[in-house]
């Protein structure tokens, strides 16, 4: 099944490949700020839906973690851009992330039970893999401001741990035949 996970992954892979940017130019700091905030917000929104819709404890707990952790990251990101007087600037990547997030929510809303859990967790795995790749290949290398770069470096381990956590749940869901 072609899920929104694949769309979002495609968006981020194209971002990491630099396809979304003018030749030789990566995103600017205001554009990176918008990408970071949107990426976190999209995952918070999916988490809110999963927390209220899933019947599986491990999935609900994971969803709650995504809401809390990504909210924490966005709080710091917002504080930093305010301090630096950087206004996040929407760009094709942040817009495409938002679109992918909206499509994911719309698709999830049609699903129930095991199908919902599987689609949500599969998306979380693809999402965190894609975000990690974008952080490594595009966002960190292009960030000009040292504090913005430091924030990206600081949040990277969280994305990595979330990915491992999501993969663990994915394995138990497939074992239980969901």
């Amino acid at each position, binding site marked *: 099944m072609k899920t929104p996970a694949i769309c979002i992954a495609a968006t981020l892979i194209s971002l990491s490949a630099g396809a979304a940017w003018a030749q030789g130019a990566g995103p600017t700091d205001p554009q990176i700020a918008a990408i970071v905030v949107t990426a976190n917000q999209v995952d918070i929104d999916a988490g809110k839906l999963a927390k209220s819709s899933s019947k599986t404890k491990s999935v609900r707990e994971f969803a709650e*973690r995504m809401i*809390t*952790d990504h*909210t*924490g*990251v966005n*709080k*710091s990101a917002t504080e930093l851009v305010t301090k630096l007087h950087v206004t996040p600037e929407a760009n094709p990547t942040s817009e495409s992330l938002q679109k992918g997030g909206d499509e994911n929510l719309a698709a999830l809303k049609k699903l129930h039970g095991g199908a919902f859990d599987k689609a949500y967790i599969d998306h979380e795995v693809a999402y965190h893999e894609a975000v990690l790749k974008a952080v490594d290949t595009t966002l960190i290398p292009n960030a000009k401001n040292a504090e913005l770069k430091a924030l990206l470096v*600081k*949040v990277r*381990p*969280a994305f*990595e*741990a979330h990915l*491992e*956590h999501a993969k*663990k749940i994915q394995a138990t869901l497939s074992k239980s035949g969901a």
Partner: protein
Amino acid sequence: MARRQILKRGVRLAAGALIALGLVASATAGPGRTHTVTIENMQFNPPELTVRRGDRIVWVNKDLFPHTVTATSKTFDSGSIAANASWRYVAAKRGDYAYVCTFHPTMKGKITVQ
């Protein structure tokens, strides 16, 4: 006479030295040694720590979101430690205590209480 005085002084000196030694010993081995474990980048640092009974361990959360310090045996459980907050625990019983962050199952640590 002189010999007795020397002996007395010797005894006093020895007693003084013993008291001084005792003070030093109680300052280093007594209760109240504090160890710090930093929680940062989704890791406990140091991940393994050996302490003496009665020592205090403080976990400081430097990540941007909450973590827990929860012994797998349930001997101790911090509950949620907010970003920039800390939690302290006095090691009461000897043994090895593996612990995790219940929020993030990839985070593991160990305390050995001697």
